[in-house]
């Protein structure tokens, strides 16, 4: 049981990383002048869509937790709607936090919001997939010794890694290297795509290695 779970976990993470890579490669076939640095907004959208899609598909295929007994359509619909609302709320919540961290209020608002969206895709979406719109369960997973299964463990590690990665992403802000990836982002999200991407991948791999042991 545990071995199969670990295997599945590994595949899901690999797929996630693969989807991020795809989101860099594929659009360049369809869109002109696509590059991560110049058309970063488009890339952010595409990346978050890809990752969400992969997460949803994986959730439907793998179904890590035994689905609830009641499975009427209306229940599923309300659940789905609730998830959407939670997702939106988390986007706005992150946006507010970024502004509090110093992102400008009016200018670059789209950048800030998309950054909030992508952070939500990496943190909220897996939570919603795995735990459902259940705040109490979230709190349980993210408090000490509250983890019950290996899936929740992986969820905890990836989500916290994402937050730490974002937090550390502010590191190059004050440096005056004048690299292109430093230019367009302000106070908090001087955190760059490339940077974030690297961190994402790094953080995604870490739990896998740890669990495969």
């Amino acid at each position, binding site marked *: 049981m545990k071995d199969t779970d670990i295997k599945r976990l590994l595949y899901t993470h690999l797929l996630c990383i693969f989807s991020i890579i795809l989101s860099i490669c594929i659009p360049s076939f369809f869109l002109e002048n696509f590059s991560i640095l110049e058309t970063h907004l488009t890339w952010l959208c595409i990346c978050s869509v890809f990752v969400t899609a992969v997460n949803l598909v994986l959730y439907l295929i793998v179904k890590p937790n035994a689905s609830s007994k009641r499975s009427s359509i209306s229940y599923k619909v309300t659940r789905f709607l609730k998830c959407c609302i939670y997702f939106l709320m988390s986007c706005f919540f992150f946006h507010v*936090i970024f502004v509090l961290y*110093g992102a400008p209020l009016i200018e670059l608002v789209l950048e800030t919001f998309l950054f909030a969206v992508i952070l939500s895709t990496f943190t909220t979406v897996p939570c919603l997939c795995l735990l459902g719109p259940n705040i109490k369960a979230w709190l349980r997973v993210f*408090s000490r010794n509250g983890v019950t299964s290996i899936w929740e463990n992986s969820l905890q590690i990836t989500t916290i890694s994402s937050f730490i990665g974002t937090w550390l992403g502010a590191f190059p802000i*004050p*440096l005056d290297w004048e690299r292109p990836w430093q230019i367009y982002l302000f106070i908090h999200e001087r955190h760059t795509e490339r940077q974030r991407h690297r961190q994402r991948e790094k953080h995604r791999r870490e739990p896998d290695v740890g669990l495969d042991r």
Partner: protein
Amino acid sequence: MRLGSGAFAACCVVIEVLGVALFLRGFFPAPVRSSSRAEQRAEPAAPEPSAGASSNWTKLPPPLFKKVVIMLIDGLRDDFVFGSKGVKFMPYTTYLVEKGASHSFVAEAKLPTVTMPRIKALMTGSLPGFIDVVRNLNSPELLEDNVITQAKAAGKRIIFYGDETWVKLFPKHFVEYDGTTSFFVSDYTEVDDNVTRHLDKVLKRGDWDMLILHYLGLDHIGHVSGPSSPLIGHKLREMDSILMKIHTSLLSEERETLVPNLLVLCGDHGMSETGGHGASSMEELNTALILISSAFERKPGDIRRPKHVQQTDLAATLAIGLGLPIPGNSVGSLLFPTVEGRPVREQLRFLHLNAVQLSKLLQENVPSYEKEPGFEQFKMSERLHGNWIRLYLEENNSEVLFNLGAKVRRQYLDALRTLSLSLSRQVAQYDIYSMLVGTVVVLEVLSLLLLSIPEALSNKAELEVPLWSPVFSLLFYLTLLVLSALHVIVCTSAESSCYFCGLSWLTAGGVMVLVSALLCAVVSALAKTFGDGKFLSKNPAHPKPRWSELDVLILLGTMGHVLSLGASSFIEEEHQTWYFLINTLCLALCHEIYRNCLLRDDSEPQQCPHVEEEFIRTAAALQDRSTGCDTLEPHGVSRSLTSLDTLRGYEKWMVLASPWVILTCCRLLRSLNQTGVQWAHRPDLGHWLTSSDHKAELSVLTALSLIVIFALVQRKCSLTSKVALALGLLGVYCYRAAIGNVLFPWQRDSKDISKGVIEARFVHVFVLGILFTGTKDLLKSQVIATDVTIKTVGLWEIYSGLVLLAALLFRPHNLPVLVFSLLIQTIMTKFIWKPLRHDAAEITIMHYWFGQAFFYFQGNSNNIATVDISAGFVGLDTYIEVPAVFLTAFATFAGPVLWASHLVSFLSSETSSGSALSHACFCYALICSFPVSAYIILVTSLRYHLFIWSVFSPKLLYEGMHILITAAICVFFTAMDQTNTKA
């Protein structure tokens, strides 16, 4: 000897201050000068080289100009004259630059771009050291060889009007002068009118040879409203008309005497995009320099681009122009275009004089001067020059002479450039020995502090300081012996001057005793720790302390901040680090609060008995250990569960909301003052408020802030100090209205602006009164020793006195910083620290972080230019050194000081335990000395970094000042702690 950990920490910080002072003295060396320059003044001028033939030119050449007028405009950036602003506002100057008989240059100033060092550079041609910035406030007499002194010795009559700094630099040099003080920055008309009013009279009189005018208005406008303000245009136009007046008067005089005069228009430093100066941006470094004289012929259609030259070149040029010897320390080279119109022989003579002076300076400062390329070039040109003179005296073919002359000239110019460059690069050597001794002292103190952490933060808050045993140990004497031997060897062999060697033997011996005693103490502490460590590891009953997320954050944040000091960008943008850290701190607190509240709600139904049991246990434990709260104690859920239970509904909501309120406050403050370097030019609320269009808004904001300050502070005061506080705050508003920052609602017409001395003194009286009441209460609590509340009230009164002083000194747009600081303190006290029961160490570090953040919220940065010197003149008629320095220091470090004093009053009122204050003192000392020690090592290793003067040195000065203030705070802590234990 047993010592309380507070007293121990205070001692450590005081010793550390000594170490840092020694380090600073070594790090900022006295600029290297040519030795015995003053005595050699009578030295004859170098004769013309003549290669065998005897030349009759052995004296100094006669002056080129009869009269010289130097018009120095403070902060005249190059584009104010040569850019679009110059074309628009300075038509006459532009005409002169483009078509008239003039030479224009862009003169590059060196660091620091502050007025006094720049005046020195202009007049001596040397490069003043960085430490001159600190001496800027009370400029002592300039003893170096300079143009003014030479001119006076040559019997020239010099008249000066303008910035008082000149009068202080050159006392008794001027036959007539009128100094204006530059410290009332908000005044930009009167300072200049004071200069101009003499002009008509002086220009008519012919009894002077040199006239110096220093206009301050432009710089003041820059400080108040920045370089893009419309006021700049008016001021430039005014300056243009003054220049025209002087120029026409000089021209009309020339028509009578037929001897050319010289008019110099120059700036001392530029102006950054925010309007300040002191740093090294291009706008601050590049100044305009225009030499105007009818001697400078110009063919029509001859367009000259302003050439880039060094500011130091002016001294040599002036000396040549006036027929004076070139100042001995000058590293500048003659501005050749000024002598281009002279015969070739004279040109070569001037170049030779300059080259001889530079090569002499090089010989005195560089041991291996013969290998310098500049020196070789100079020798070669001198030889060629001699040949040329021989040919000239033999009256050879004029074409050969001309060609050879051109070649010699080119050689000389090359040699001058190379010499000047290698001399400017000859940065004064660091005094490594003093630096090393200072570093050793600081590091030893730090390691002592670090090693005594477990003992100092234990319940008793006392520790055994091994002081006497080391003094009699062998190690101590051996170290002392080795150090003395080293001292003798270093001091006898050192070539460059060394401060530590210059100290008297007794002082140096004292320092060495201190160093070796500290070393022995560290070694014995180390031995003890390891011994204890072995013992503890054998003892399984001792649990490993579990760290909460908050502790991890605090530790990592401190570490990260210290590491970030190694990068110049992080120093420039240090405020970002602190804002980021306190934001994260707030989010971590938020997380802690929510987890406690929500999880408890969740688990209560099932785990009720368990919680109950835990509650009883914790309560019992708290009662047991009423004397101390231990950092090593595991804290977390169990501690806070009980305290949040007791809250009522509305208070609980306030607790939940408080982190967000604090975050919002911080976000607002962040947009009040843009600071740092990279984003300093961005518009912020502070600039918006200070612009003259928004005076009404500023007045309303000021009044509101003062009211809120009163409301927040008066809660815990006694009645007397409440009244005093109210009157004092009223006085603050009157003061601001008197100096014209804000408006009275009933006074629409602008009345005359005064210095507001009476109003400010009125407030000072109340500040002193409140502080006095507080001290009296503290003494009473110590003598009577019955009531803790008296002491609490006394501490709070001292705190409110400091708040009142800060309210007086802060510029009006900064008053919200004070308000938010008080607000955050109140919220944190009520809703976070009390319910969550953080221990003294955590509270101390949070106070420290917020204090640092507020230092930057005030608009400070790690740049000397942001220090608000005007705060030192509040309530003073003239510059008096001690109070001015004190007030400026307080206004600059108000954030950290206010938070620290809040910490004292909070801890002494809050905790039942006696050791909280000593713990806090220890933590404060440790967390302040950690960055300083690390920074000293970093700076030592980065001392040849490109940005050492512009970025690292100002930060070093700030750190030095910070540790001094920390020492004062720690002593205050300890004093409070002593009264506590006695009570």
